């Protein structure tokens, strides 16, 4: 992994800011889609694509690339915006999200956009595919890492736990999953809909190594992934404590924003203003 210093952190922060603005603009143009999850995962995605992952946007099929599986496909606005900023395609294309004929399908479609490892949207299937890739990589003595990103509500799905058992049994130390622990799902707070805690103890019982991180602190995110790479004989689960809707104070923590876009241009402007002005409390330099 690259060296991390204050300058790099500044770069990551400004890139994340750009991606958050992209997401608001995309969702406004699309008129539908998910706001809370994507905004909460911006810092993790920025860290992955601009620091952690071995990948090459000019050669998406590079054989030795790390594999990143987005299991919770509905948060794809953050994936698309990050990929655009990382050079996979022109940011201009972001405004085609969810539109007829777009490569940016409402849920990611591997056959449409180079750089996607799988199609997703139906929840609960990403870890199993990542386990499959990790097994194949081990058989072929490949050095690449397999990463899967999951929602916390998504953990309700039993398919996940079948995969967690298998990964533990096979001691897949080339596999790291990250759980977007934002405490919301569609019908409410995760602990009301289907209590998940204690997540750490559950994974430890399945023979995983568990790392908790603050998903909005770049040092923490990057150290977490660095540590994960150093763990041998066990798959790693990173529990990323994230704020849904992060950056837009008026919607943070509110599960109602799981699947709603900004309702109109005025609301999108308000969101951008909150993003640009430290939660709207100081005046924007753009004004």
């Amino acid at each position, binding site marked *: 992994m690259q060296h991390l210093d204050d300058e790099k952190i500044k770069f990551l922060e400004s890139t994340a800011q750009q991606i958050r603005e992209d997401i608001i603009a995309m969702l406004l143009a*699309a*008129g*539908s*889609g998910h706001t809370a999850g994507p905004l909460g995962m911006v810092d993790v995605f920025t860290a992955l694509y601009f620091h952690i992952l071995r990948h090459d946007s000019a050669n998406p099929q590079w054989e030795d690339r790390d594999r990143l599986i987005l299991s919770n*496909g509905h948060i794809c606005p953050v994936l698309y915006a990050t990929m655009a900023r990382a050079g996979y395609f022109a940011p201009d294309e972001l405004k085609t999200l*969810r*539109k*007829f*004929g*777009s490569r940016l*399908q*409402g*849920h990611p*479609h591997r056959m449409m956009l180079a750089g996607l490892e799988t*199609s*997703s*949207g*139906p*929840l*609960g299937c990403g870890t199993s595919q990542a386990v499959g890739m990790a097994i194949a990589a081990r058989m072929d003595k490949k050095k690449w890492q397999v990463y899967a990103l999951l929602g916390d*509500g*998504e953990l*309700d*799905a*039993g398919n996940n736990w079948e995969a967690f058992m298998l990964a533990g049994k096979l001691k897949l130390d080339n596999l790291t999953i990250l759980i977007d622990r934002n405490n919301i*799902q*569609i*019908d409410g707070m995760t602990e009301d*809909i*289907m209590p998940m805690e204690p997540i750490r103890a559950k994974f430890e019982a399945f023979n995983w190594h568990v790392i908790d991180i603050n998903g909005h602190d770049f040092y923490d995110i990057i150290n977490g992934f660095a540590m994960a790479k150093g763990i041998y004989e066990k798959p790693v689960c990173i529990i990323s404590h994230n704020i849904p809707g992060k950056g837009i104070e008026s919607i943070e923590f509110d599960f109602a924003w799981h699947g709603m876009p900004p309702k109109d241009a005025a609301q999108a402007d308000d969101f951008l203003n909150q993003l640009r002005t430290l939660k709207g409390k100081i005046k924007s330099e753009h004004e």
Partner: protein
Amino acid sequence: MPVNPNAKLVENLFAPDIKQEPTRAGYGEGLKRLGETHPNVVALCADLTGSTMTKKFADAYPNRFIQVGVAEQNLVTVASGMAAAGKIPYIASYTMFCPGRAWEQVRTTICYNDQPVKIAGAHAGVSVGPDGATHQAIEDMAIMRVIPNMQVFAACDAIENRKVTMAIADTGKPAFFRFQREKTPVFTTEETPFEIGKAQVYWEGDGVAIVACGPLVYNALLAARDLEAEGISCMVINNASIKPMDEDVVIAAAKKCGAVVTVEEHQVMGGMGSRVAEILAQQCPVPMEFVGVHDRFGESGEPNQLIEHFGMGVGSIKEAVKSVLARKK
């Protein structure tokens, strides 16, 4: 205008401002009404309580509602268990996930056991729109109708979907019924007949029989009206009861018209039209055309844009009628 008066359709059938409501609203309303009359009706949902409209029941009868989380296989199998213990469970998710994800569990624990679980499939068809292919169920009627004991329904509007929801409560049988996300015209009335195993003639004619299900029945009526002006007489049948299907009405229509077009928001393989073809191949073979999705996945787009793109718009139905007419002896 050859509207069948016995169908009791709305007066303003073709008015541009005809009332629009999503079919799913009929599920919400029907389930809530059942709650009042049937103490053994219970509802289960998998983290989609609002958009499936289960919420109406859940709010009215919180003690008879179970939230299982994002876990459709558990949804199906828990419902089977509750049915075995005397309840009539209505379970709801998006059609793609339930029954889509839980097919074998539906087959074994519900149908093989013959438990009266009622599977409400929301967000069926490509008209789901921008969410894209992963969320657009267009295979569901095929995979459900092949299972013994299962009954299958596709209502044409919110009122009929409410009738379906309520009619299946007392059958003692498993049932699957699909409905849509978008607002579509409400063109039937309280008096419009709905009966399990019966198809209804909505428009009378003798040149080509259009057998349709779901909100596309309305497109079929629009096509029949346009074609009438062109001198082509069509019969339009609302075939909401996919299984059991009304063989008598289907055969009589084929005999009278000598050509059939089927219309469904579903793969043409294995769907409602396939069942019509199975019946007619044995009893009254006539030329047929199938309007529906032809062996493709859906994609993101606006609902109507996708209906047109995948060849289920009014224009496509008219074309199908003309090409089947050309083949008619």
